[in-house]
């Protein structure tokens, strides 16, 4: 856990803020792809001794999170022809402020958690902050695509938390989680497409108009 891991973790936090602060869906997707790439590089920076398990974990999550899922989201916004998040429930500036509060809470809470020896000091706070900010994006944004991005952030946070014990988690569990996320985003992509076709918009607020 040298300075390179710390740097990666700080960059992960910055991508969180990027997602919260931008109104452009393409920037949002680019940020989540970047975050996926950083998460892929993290196990390599964290580990002391290299193993096939760690390398496969790194390469697998990097490919799924920074290439496949963003490609899927890009396709979804292309087909739905949306560019911007128009009216979030909480404004972008306020989201940034709340995100900062989330980081403060995460650092405060992480202090009190009993953690396995040799965990990077930054890993747990950044994981918690990413989870909270993922929730924030998931709950306050109106567009379905941004909500999917929020869901991915949430999952990335859980993945980060899992890295505290990367040496001990069986490879199959990781692959299972990765597959789950992939399927979830796949289904959400299709849902986004269908919502758009039915309502000419992917704003989830209009879903309250559903009736038979």
């Amino acid at each position: 856990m040298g300075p390179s891991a710390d740097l990666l973790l700080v960059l992960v936090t910055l991508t969180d803020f990027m997602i919260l602060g931008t109104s452009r869906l393409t920037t949002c997707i680019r940020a989540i792809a970047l975050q996926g790439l950083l998460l892929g590089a993290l196990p390599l920076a964290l580990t002391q001794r290299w193993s096939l398990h760690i390398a496969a974990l790194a390469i697998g999550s990097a490919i799924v999170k920074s290439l496949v899922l963003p490609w899927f989201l890009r396709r979804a916004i292309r087909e739905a022809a949306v560019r911007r998040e128009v009216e979030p429930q909480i404004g972008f500036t306020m989201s940034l402020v709340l995100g900062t509060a989330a980081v403060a809470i995460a650092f405060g809470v992480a202090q009190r958690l009993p953690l396995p020896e040799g965990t990077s000091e930054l890993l747990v706070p950044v994981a918690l902050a990413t989870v909270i900010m993922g929730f924030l994006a998931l709950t306050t944004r109106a567009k379905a695509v941004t909500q999917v991005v929020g869901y991915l952030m949430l999952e990335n946070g859980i993945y980060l938390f899992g890295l505290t014990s990367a040496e001990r988690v069986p490879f199959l569990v990781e692959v299972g989680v990765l597959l789950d996320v992939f399927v979830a985003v796949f289904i959400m992509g299709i849902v986004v497409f269908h919502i758009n076709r039915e309502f000419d918009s992917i704003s989830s607020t209009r879903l309250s108009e559903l009736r038979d």
Partner: protein
Amino acid sequence: MTSWTAVWTLGLVLVIAPLLPGLATKTKSWLTGRRGAPVLQLYFDLGKLWRKRSTYSRTTTWVFRLAPVAVVATALGAACLVPLDGRQSLLRFTGDLVAFAYLLALGRFALVLAGLDTGSSFEGMGSSREVTFSTFAEPALFLGFATLVLLTGSLSLSGMFGEALFTAWGRSAAALALIAISLFLVLLAENARVPVDDPATHLELTMIHEVIVLDHSGPELGLILYGSALKLAVFGALLVGVLVPRAALPQPLAAGALAGGLVLVAIAVGVVEGVMARLRLIRVPQFLVAASVLAALATFLVLWR
């Protein structure tokens, strides 16, 4: 002995300050495929303005005439507080970082009053914007300072940028890099550069800083222009101070590093102006909140270490 080097470094900064806006403009012109004004244009402008006569609107009072002097005096005072030679500043006392921030704020206050004094609605609008945006820039600056205080354990700018900073780079490089980025964003906002304000625009509706000084003329306008250039140099010196701790360097080299750093900062400002457009006014607070967020993140990184 030390104070003499502080004096001549201050002199160096006072002389090269008007070079910086020229460099930024030249870089921008070069990036956008134009030839641009000479790098020394501001020196020529200052010379020209000095030979002219000031005209005053009948609605203005002494407040209007006070502003140019106040702008230069406060910028000069702030420059005295920054350890320009990398060791010690001319004036130093515990808590001088607060004096630094509010000396510059005092200069802005005088300028805003002068803008309001003219009674022009455009200048009033510019004043309102200037004050609004500085409100958002202040937390970013202070959070950055607070982090430096935490890292170095000194409440004086001279201590913050001294030997302690050099060792701090070894311990928490990420936090210092975040502070540097945040300081650069504050620099852009405080000195009315793109993406907060466009120094090249002359449409009253979009201007912020430029519109306030519309009524100033002659040597007084020259003073304001020089004061702004000096403010840019002072902020640039802060940024260079964070990025390159010069306390261990021998004296001529430290001054050279400062001059070279200032030139690079000016070029960076020009690059930003070349590659992006001014933000919509409604987006500017978000830009500055982002700067505060970066500084806050740095504070957390240091605080919970």
